[in-house]
């Protein structure tokens, strides 16, 4: 494995390989000294053309726990402000001998393009509305941690599917691992051509919730309201928010997930987010371990590390 650009690159076997390796890094993260020398001498640069706290810090923590050196390139402080092109930035970092570029960009496909230009390994940390593969991997890990497996589990992904890279990567990953996915949201926030997706579609959250093992809430991007895709935040919450009352429809063993950053009180009620059914903090903790596994697979060995573990 040289790059991680899309969940589709991994396939079922690849995802399972990453999840198995993640077990070891969860153990490392729980140690008194949560650091191993595995990637000593490697350099990981996070190149973010879009705001992010948790993903960037998560990748940097992961790299540091593997003893790699990290560099942070953010648009605000880099030569991008002087008009440097994406390609020049990538090639400059590559020429400095950076081993991995973790790339986030508002346009779909940018990490794919960067991968064509550089020798370094490229990790897609979110490209436009397209994909966010490490989020999907940490979500899969968190679900199997709580429910044992994803096989035959029912998962509802609720909210703004259309503009969500998290939803795209998760639909791919969840269905590759055998889960049944239902998308729930207003028609204006569902993407076109859904018939080609391996999912069910519903606009009735109350009917879906009692049947699912996982309720996955997506962030309602507030800028969508100005685009008149939803009538008002209050109406959105009334119809598609996981309110305290609605959370009672969930089965006892069901879990609630959110990729963050969440709008408390919009898509998810604070009482639900902070209750036992929520695994949101597990998602964040597992995110570091999953990204350690991804960086380790990309940067250890000659890129020929067998993904099937063993």
């Amino acid at each position, binding site marked *: 494995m040289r790059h991680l650009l899309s969940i589709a690159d991994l396939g079922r076997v690849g995802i399972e390989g990453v999840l198995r*390796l993640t*077990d*070891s890094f969860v*153990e*490392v993260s729980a*140690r*008194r*000294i949560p*650091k*191993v*020398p*595995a*990637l000593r001498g490697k350099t990981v640069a996070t190149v973010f053309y879009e705001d992010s706290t948790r993903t960037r810090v998560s990748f940097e923590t992961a790299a540091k726990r*593997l003893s790699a050196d990290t560099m942070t390139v953010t648009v605000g402080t880099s030569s991008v402000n002087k008009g440097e092109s994406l390609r020049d930035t990538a090639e400059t970092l590559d020429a400095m001998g950076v081993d991995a570029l973790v790339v986030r960009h508002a346009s779909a496909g940018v990490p794919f393009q960067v991968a064509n230009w550089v020798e370094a390994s490229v990790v897609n940390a979110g490209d436009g509305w397209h994909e966010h593969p490490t989020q999907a991997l940490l979500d899969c890990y968190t679900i199997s941690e709580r429910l044992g497996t994803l096989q035959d589990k029912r998962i509802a992904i609720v909210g703004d599917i259309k503009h969500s890279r998290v939803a795209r990567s998760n639909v791919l990953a969840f269905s590759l691992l055998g889960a049944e996915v239902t998308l729930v949201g207003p028609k204006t926030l569902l993407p076109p051509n859904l018939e080609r997706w391996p999912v069910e579609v519903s606009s009735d959250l109350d009917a879906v919730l009692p049947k699912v093992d996982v309720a996955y809430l997506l962030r309602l991007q507030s800028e969508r309201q100005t685009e008149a895709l939803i009538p008002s935040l209050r109406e959105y919450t009334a119809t598609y928010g996981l309110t305290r009352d609605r959370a009672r429809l969930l089965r006892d063993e069901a879990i609630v997930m959110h990729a963050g950053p969440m709008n408390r009180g919009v898509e998810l009620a604070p009482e639900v987010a902070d209750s036992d059914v929520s695994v949101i903090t597990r998602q964040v903790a597992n995110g570091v371990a999953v990204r350690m596994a991804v960086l*380790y697979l990309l940067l*250890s*060995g*000659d890129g*020929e*590390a*067998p993904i099937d*573990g*063993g």
Partner: protein
Amino acid sequence: MAERERRVTPPYGGVFVPRSQVLDADGVGRALVRIAHEVLERNSGVDDLVVVGLQTGGVPLAERLADELERIEGSEVPVGTLDVAFYRDDIGLRPVLPEAATEIPVDLGGRTVVLVDDVLFTGRTVRAALDALTDFGRPRAVQLAVMVDRGHRELPIRPDYVGKNLPTRRDEVVDVSLDGVHIGELVKR
């Protein structure tokens, strides 16, 4: 004995085909009993002792050794497991993936660790294990027990307790389990 899959033994991947038996199951058992007595003699009992088996070959031996120590002394000895994949110096030369779980049940600070492995060869696994152990505390001492010392050391490392000294050629493969010790070859599939 049955052919065993060996994924991590050089030349990395293949099926172990035994040529001759060096110890049988009883022989391995007797060696472990002797090592248990040696450990007790050296450490004057089992106080502050922790037995740590290296994944994967050292783990069943470590459990048996701890059982023997308990049987002789009558008090419990904590057993841990250690996978050294992330500490190896050949990351980058070949795929190094962890094989099994690391589980250290107690803080190692101030304790005496008996590190157990099946075969001592180049010494590089033990070097990695010593690095790994320090991340779990500062042991008072680390002692090394191996079922087979086959020579060909590449680092200044020597065992404290040895089941069997076994002169070998570099290209031979030694297989150790509780069922016995065998010498043979690795056949690529």
